[in-house]
């Protein structure tokens, strides 16, 4: 070791070190410290059970007590019901449904109850809960552990849907979701939890308003609209396209429902060429809704038909080549950008 020259300190400082996982962990701790009405429940999330399977809730039960931070049986309907009920009595529960595919066993609670109670009660009750759930392919977990099901929830009036692609946004969106008086489903991406992306953790006042997209890169030739891990891939593709002389405006929706029409339409009007990318199956996906609104609002101003990239119309496959073929990546996004720019 002594024979190896130490890395130059300046170089070391320039490398990002903060991850989305750390940002989420801090967001939970900060929120719990500020508001005693915030609760968390879900499978394995208290410290005696390991503090959550990826550690977002690590330390919470020790610090804030096992009244407020509760591990549960593997009972998604019971988890969601308990969150809804406590929220009706003035608490702000964060329910962790470990994997997004497991929301399917609690759809009645989420869709028929959490999303609708405010409306069906004529505004007498409301359900200020956050459903944290993780998903995303890349680890070969096959057809029931990594689906992106955001379109199902976006299609349901009364529930908001978020997904972050940077630590700053993960922090700010989760804090805003907790603050929100209505149910929010907060989708976390498993493969990018531990990717260092930022230099510092946000401070506790940082918020990202729900319903507000981020223009992560300004450009003039092609608008790329994405979210979650596909935004990470799209940023890399945009970088590569710039080297090819194509100027990409990169929008991360951050809130999938309700989505930021103003930002998207302004960019689409500017570039006239739009690519929408998501990991979820393309057919009937979020991209279809966005493309449709762009067509309704900007028909005649578009230089090319709106293009979509999404998951294949199959279950998420296991085998590596199939899994790679299933979803868009930076290479395919880059190719689509160049095609649109022609």
């Amino acid at each position: 070791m002594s024979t190896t020259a130490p890395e130059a300190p300046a170089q070391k400082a320039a490398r990002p070190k903060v991850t989305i996982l750390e940002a989420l962990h801090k967001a939970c701790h900060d929120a719990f410290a500020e508001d005693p009405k915030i609760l968390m429940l879900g499978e394995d999330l208290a410290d005696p059970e390991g503090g959550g399977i990826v550690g977002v809730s690590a330390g919470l039960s020790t610090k804030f007590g096992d009244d407020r931070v509760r591990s549960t049986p593997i009972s998604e309907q019971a988890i969601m019901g308990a969150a809804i009920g406590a929220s009706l009595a003035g608490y702000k529960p964060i329910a962790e449904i470990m994997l997004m595919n497991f929301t399917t066993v609690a759809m009645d609670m989420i869709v028929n109850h959490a999303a609708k109670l405010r409306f069906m009660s004529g505004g007498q009750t409301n359900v200020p809960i956050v459903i944290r759930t993780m998903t995303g392919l890349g680890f070969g977990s096959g057809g029931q552990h990594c689906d992106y099901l955001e379109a199902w929830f976006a299609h349901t009036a009364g529930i908001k849907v978020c997904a972050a692609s940077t630590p700053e946004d993960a922090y700010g969106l989760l804090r805003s979701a907790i603050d929100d008086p209505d149910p929010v489903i907060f989708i976390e991406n498993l493969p990018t939890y531990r990717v260092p992306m930022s230099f510092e953790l946000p401070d506790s006042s940082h918020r990202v308003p729900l319903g507000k997209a981020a223009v992560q890169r300004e450009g003039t030739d092609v608008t790329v609209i994405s979210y979650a891990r596909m935004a990470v891939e799209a940023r890399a593709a945009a970088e590569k396209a710039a080297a090819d002389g194509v100027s990409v405006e990169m929008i991360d929706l951050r809130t999938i429902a309700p989505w930021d029409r103003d930002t998207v339409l302004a960019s689409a009007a500017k570039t006239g060429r739009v690519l929408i990318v998501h990991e979820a199956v393309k057919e009937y996906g979020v991209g279809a809704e966005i493309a449709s609104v762009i067509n309704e609002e900007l028909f005649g101003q578009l230089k090319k038909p709106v293009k979509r990239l999404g998951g294949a119309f199959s279950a998420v496959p296991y085998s590596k080549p199939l899994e790679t073929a299933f979803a868009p990546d930076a290479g395919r996004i880059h190719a689509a950008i160049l095609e649109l720019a022609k």
Partner: protein
Amino acid sequence: MATNQYVPDSATLLDIYKRAALLKANDERARKVILSGQIAMVYYSYRGQEIIPSALSACLRDDDSLCTIYRGIHDMLAKGFPLRPLWAELAGRKTGSCKGKGGPMHLTYPPKGIMVTTGIVGSTAPIANGLAWAAQLDKSDRVSVCTFGDGASNIGAVHEAMNLAACWNLPTIFICQNNLYAEHTTYEKMTAGETIAGRAAGYGMPGVRVNGNDAAEMYAAAAEAVARARAGEGPTLIECMTFRFFGHSFGDDDTRYIPKEQKAAAMAADPVPALRAKLIADRIATEEELAAIEAGIEAEIDDAVKFALDSEWPVADDLRFDVFEKEIAA
């Protein structure tokens, strides 16, 4: 069965009767109003099941919560849902408790603890646990009641909820109103095991089957469960045996699936007149006093129905409101 210490006194029995008489009269009026064409609504008559919520509610406070189901107007009225906003909601009017947005299957009235009415079988139980958890966190002795039918005892959500309630020692009271029919299917045919109450043992909580049509027996079981929950001793499942007189949904021809003799016997043993006769026989009230109470109820219902029918309808623009806290842009 009423062997515990909770014996209703005369005042309590009279209180139970007042509630039951209101429930009976309101159901009779609802069916009449539907048949008259004044209000078109889906209606699940609870006629025959009045004693259960009347005796239960005699043990409850306004701040105790209730989650009930589409066949649940009896539960709500017993808990104090006022008649005007109830009827206006049934009529789909803007003055309804839910501004006409919920209707008969989603009636809600938080000032009386009526927090959720669901049209989904079994979904009261998981949500009731959350209200019970909140009471526990508040260090309050509030209790959380969920009611459901015998059919719901076979859906997973109820079992997940009973397990969680027991694990967390929640003040949740599970009231199963066993009216012997899950929609059109008999209880015996589709429910394994001797009793639904017996399933409580699997979750390590007390479970008791009572004659839900008997005011004293129903009160005793409810009072004991409420006392246990208030004292922090956890959940209870009460299976209340009863019968519904008018089929699954009002208008369905139950002669297709309910034996004539079974229904005739149940109606002959109508629990509301039975309690009325008992009050008179035991000199708790006189015929005149009860008749005056009943006349008062009819007048209140008259007023509420008139109020509902005279009220304004909601307008299309109302759809933008109450989806989220902030209205949807026009």
